[in-house]
């Protein structure tokens, strides 16, 4: 069977490395992406994605793959469009008035922007964790159980209990909350709340988890726990994480994408991006010259 990815793949020109440009003035008008944004067995593929808010173009011509069992980090200065791009992956941008997405994004070869695609099951398959911990103002148990309940994933109360327990265990929260599942989720500390949100996302067994700066509101200790958790979750899920902390990207991710003013400037292995960036903009950002 010919997949969407197969048909589109060859058409994309892979930008060549521009090491020669290193001595030039900083280029802000970039065309094409440096490095190889594609992988052999993609879980999600994005091709020629443009995102508009009204007349403003927020993302210009981004093409990138998300591999299975990898953590893909997206970095870049504020307003560069990385969060916008992330929210395209589970169509959260649908709720933003005036937002328009062009191009093709597929999940397991299904075009998620096809009119026949229902956004509800899509979001069950592509879960999301937000910048600010946002547990429902319900009990810890209900926070986790809500997703499986509305999707009818469990047949009995016992099964549901099991899903809640395994989700909390996976999120590394079980030992801390097992005795107080009936207490409100909003009563937990910030780091616990964020892990609760991660548990809520994995309770519906998604394939991809999107994380939008999940640690920006947390202290270093809570951040370390979340990062540990991300590393463990990678064995089961694909994770796309937007982060401002470059150290975090370096620690948790396998591949890194650098966005600049709506352009996907460079994609590459995390080691390579942080040690030997191939684009001037990436280098400037990573070395802290701007951003």
């Amino acid at each position, binding site marked *: 069977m010919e997949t969407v990815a197969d048909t589109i793949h060859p058409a994309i020109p892979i930008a060549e490395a521009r090491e020669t440009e290193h001595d030039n003035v900083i280029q802000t008008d970039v065309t094409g992406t440096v490095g190889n944004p594609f992988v052999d067995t993609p879980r999600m593929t994005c091709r020629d994605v443009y995102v508009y808010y009204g007349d403003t173009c927020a993302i210009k011509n981004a093409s990138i793959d998300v591999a299975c069992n990898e953590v893909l980090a997206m970095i870049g200065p504020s307003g560069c469009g990385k969060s916008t791009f992330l929210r395209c992956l589970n169509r959260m941008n649908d709720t933003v008035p005036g937002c328009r997405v062009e191009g093709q994004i597929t999940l397991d070869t299904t075009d998620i922007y096809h009119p026949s695609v229902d956004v509800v099951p899509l979001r069950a398959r592509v879960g999301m964790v937000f910048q600010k911990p*946002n547990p429902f103002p319900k009990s810890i148990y209900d926070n986790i159980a809500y*997703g499986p309940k509305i999707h009818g994933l469990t047949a009995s109360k016992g099964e549901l209990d099991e899903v809640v327990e395994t989700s909390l265990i996976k999120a590394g929260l079980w030992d801390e909350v097992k005795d107080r599942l009936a207490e*409100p989720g909003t009563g937990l500390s910030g780091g616990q709340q964020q892990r609760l949100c991660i548990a809520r996302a994995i309770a519906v067994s998604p394939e991809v988890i999107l994380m939008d700066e999940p640690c920006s509101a947390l202290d270093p200790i809570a951040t370390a726990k979340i990062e540990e958790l991300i590393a463990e979750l990678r064995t089961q899920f694909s994770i796309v994480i937007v982060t401002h902390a470059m150290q975090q990207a370096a620690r948790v991710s396998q591949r890194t994408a650098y966005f600049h003013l709506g352009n996907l400037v460079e994609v590459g292995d995390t080691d390579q991006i942080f040690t030997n960036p191939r684009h001037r903009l990436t280098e400037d950002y990573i070395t802290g010259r701007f951003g």
Partner: protein
Amino acid sequence: MQPTESTNAFSPEFNQRLKRRYRAEQSFKLMGIGAIFIALAFLVFLLSTILMSGYSAFKQTYIKLDVTLDKEYFPDEDLAKGDFQGIVKASLYSMFPEVSGRRDKRMLNNLVSKGAAFKLMDMVEADPKLIGTSFSIWVPAKDDVDMLMKGNIDMDQPEANRRIKDKQYERIRTLEYGGRLQMRFNKTFFTSGDSREPELAGILSAAKGSFYTLVITLLLSFPMGVAAAIYLEEFAPDNTFTDLIEININNLAAVPSIIFGLLGLAIFINFWGIPRSTPLVGGLVLTLMTLPTIIIAARASLKSVPPSIREAALGVGASKIQTVFHHVLPLALPGMLTGTIIGMAQALGETAPLLMIGMVAFIVDIPGGFTDPAAALPVQIYLWADSPERAFTEKTSAAIIILLGFLILMNAVAVYMRKKFEIKW
């Protein structure tokens, strides 16, 4: 090194400015306190005048009569046709045997309310065996006697200018010394409907009318208002049409209420043929008036639900309607309830639109349902305030006390509901 005396590390100009800033803050605080004080003073003045003039209506003067229910008063099989007025008169004449002449007798009879005969009638109908016996009962005194007892009639005025004549005054004193005159709790005020006689007038029919009207208003306006608000806030597309609807709803909230009354008269009564003066049509009109208030309050409380909750729900794959009903609505509900109760309190106090649909009629009977003619509390106040009898003045204030009591009760319920349904955030 010695520390310097003051914090004069700054220039004198700076310190001057600092002082001015503090002075400005101080005077602003004082003005605020003054404003609150003046507002409170007005409120206390208003409430105390109403209470002072109204509390006496809860007491009423009663006269003790010795009645003999001779069989001759009941010539007919139908006991209701008995001459109860005659029994009362006979009792009075026996107490004051010296009274003679038509004028004199009328003055004597005028000490006792017409309600005395009705009271006897009720007793006889309940227990026909009373006929032929003699007993003592307490009956309401005429309103003028009541006013005299409450000190509202100045006996220093020339006789022609007072409602109580000298002879009547003497007899009232005689009754009082004989222990036959007593101030008692005014049960009639809470158990009967309107009446031409102040001593027989009560608030019950108006209170029940208001109650039925508000039930209709609540049942219609709450679901409609909340549904409209949810649709407009959560589902409606953001376009010129919805903008137009929003502007119109906001304008409707500011339309004078009497216009809604005219609309009700034209459509509900004249076009749909709903009986006038009924709580049903009153409720419909007040629904029109309350809807914009509820919609605006409900939309505001939906808006105040943090978007992160919507995102969280959408993020785990809840549909739009699940997001709204499982997560947004429970958080918005306390605000919606508060808005609704404020709207209902407004409706309870509304008079003008009810005047247009006939709820201003003089209605003695206590309404038993939504389609019985009824008055409403504020309309009753308006009617009594318009009555010439001196005794209606205190009834008016008493009715205002009752109305205010209901309003305070409703607001208390609003506060309670907000606390009860509030979700800790």
